[in-house]
């Protein structure tokens, strides 16, 4: 096996394609033709890649480019930050996220000093307001708390 992560990724894709094919079986033939072709293609290629991953010979395999190994911990931390940003947006909305997220990220992840953290957060907030609130005047989502103007 080459990579556990890649196997999981391929398995997820394989099951997603299979589920899609199962769901589209009840649609009229005109709506079903294109999904059937594409989802079957997806099943064939994800299945073939999975088989190659498990049973493919090591001899014929092209040497992979040497990549800098990324610790799983770093990946989980970054995924956590992105989900955290999403949570702030969904609860408090974009205006609060523009102020809070840089503040939290810079101080916890970046270990930046308080001057950079405060200046960065204020500048981000003002820029977002000037561009989206004042110049373009678009409505930005206010979260479930409806903190928008």
């Amino acid at each position, binding site marked *: 096996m080459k990579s556990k992560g890649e196997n999981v*990724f391929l398995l997820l894709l394989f099951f997603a394609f299979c589920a899609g094919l199962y769901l589209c079986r009840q*649609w009229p033939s*005109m709506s079903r033709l294109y999904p059937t072709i594409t989802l079957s293609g997806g099943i064939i*290629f994800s299945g073939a890649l999975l088989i190659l991953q498990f049973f493919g010979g090591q001899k014929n395999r092209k040497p992979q*480019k040497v990549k800098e190994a990324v610790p799983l911990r*770093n990946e989980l931390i970054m995924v956590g930050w992105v989900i955290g940003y999403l949570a702030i947006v969904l609860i408090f909305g974009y205006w609060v996220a523009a102020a809070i997220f840089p503040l939290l990220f810079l101080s916890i992840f970046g270990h930046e000093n308080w001057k950079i953290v405060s200046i960065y957060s204020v500048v981000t907030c003002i820029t977002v307001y000037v561009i989206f609130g004042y110049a373009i005047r678009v409505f*930005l989502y206010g979260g479930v708390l409806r903190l928008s103007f």
Partner: protein
Amino acid sequence: MIGPMVQGIQLVMHWNIWGLMLLAIILGNFFGAVPGLGGNIGLALLIPLVFGMHPFAGLAFLLAMHAVVHTGGAIPAILFGIPGNGPNAATVVDGYPMTRNGNGGRALGASLTSSAVGGIIGAVVLALMIPFLRPIAMALGSAEIFAMIVFGLTFIVSVSRSSLMKGALSAFLGLSLGMVGLDPRTGVGRFTFGQLWLWNGLSIVTIVLGIFAFAEIISLGTRGRSAQIAAGGTQISRSELWDGVKDVFRHWWLTLRTAVIGAFIGMIPGLGGDAASWICYGHAAQTCRDNEMFGQGDVRGVIGVESAQNAKEGGALLPTVVFGIPGSSGMAILLGAFLILGIEPGPGMITQHLSFVWGMVWVLVIANVMTSTSLLLLPVCQSIGKLAYFRSSLLIPGIITVAGIGAYLIRGHWQDVILTIAIGFVGYMMKKFDYPRGPLILGFILGPLAEGYFYKSMGVYGIDFVKRPLVLTFFSLAALSLCFSCWSTYREKTAERRLSYEVER
């Protein structure tokens, strides 16, 4: 012909028109560079400003803004891997790796110059095609367009050189994402799960921001708080930018080819800028010699895409002006603006208002040249380029804020933000495990178009549509393209295997 051409120049040669165009190109670059805004929102926001203006002044203002949107969109695409709008996603594929390899200045120089050259070629095509447009438009029916799209889909092979199987899987994923939404023929909701916001399908901006922007943000963050986007310690210099400028003229034949293809794709209603950029990227990857660097930072990948994007605008203007048929959603908004300004598009534009059409040609040329020259000569690129050398802890909050707002702005659904981030995780995994992301976008754009035109062709001609001469020509080209790409990939792999065998011995 000469008379209206000169009258067209006279229309443009007023200080107020130049002033408006200058303002328009600043706004156009801004709307292009901010993800989620794009040319259509820019046009919609600026239309109220042209009420009461002289028709040509208003037209020059809106057209100049719309013509340079993609030029601005290329800057964040190259420097941060965040495409400003859909078509700029193809610029990321080679532009961003160039920045990571320390050649961001060269990529920017090539992008700005090829945009200008492409814009000029698009305008020339617009001018030259005016007398021939009617027969060409009549020759292209739904069957021919379907065959052309199938031909475009064969470029998936060229775009996925690293591994054909992974490229194909990526393309099928894109094709599957493209089918989400209400089927316009039967009204069946495909993978909408009863959600109203999914009825219109997924937006290309959602996919592009997820697959490229969020994936790159996660990737940058995983490298630690002091990681930089660009390699090395040098910053973008003027000489680097000029190297990029020279690259465009060194690869003049590629620039010309992709610009002409882009202009012709622009003429076909419904295909749009996304298709133009990916088809031209595929064409560049397939036809250039020594193409193993495509996808890893080849300047020709940037040139091919950028020249096609700006040339497309000239092509798209043709059916809009001459037949009143907008070639894209942007052109549809522009068409509305024409009517507001009292300009009635249609064949009458050629017979009675040819000087106006020539005026548009000149506006396209001047706006493109003005944008690229000012961005190259003023220290704009160097200033923005410095950001690529900032540590990741400083870059990520800003990029996430802009990309997150972009994901919401495109349709105003908070669900799109969740979807963008979910697609971002898929994009990160694709990046991590070396799955080419270009085929996914190509499949997402061309798949639904192919389906739509297939059913239209079947409805109009029945299965006999495959016997039409132009359809047969495009199908033959598609087969040739597929065979050529597979053969060249096989040849490369055999050579690689032989080399590694010899090294082992």
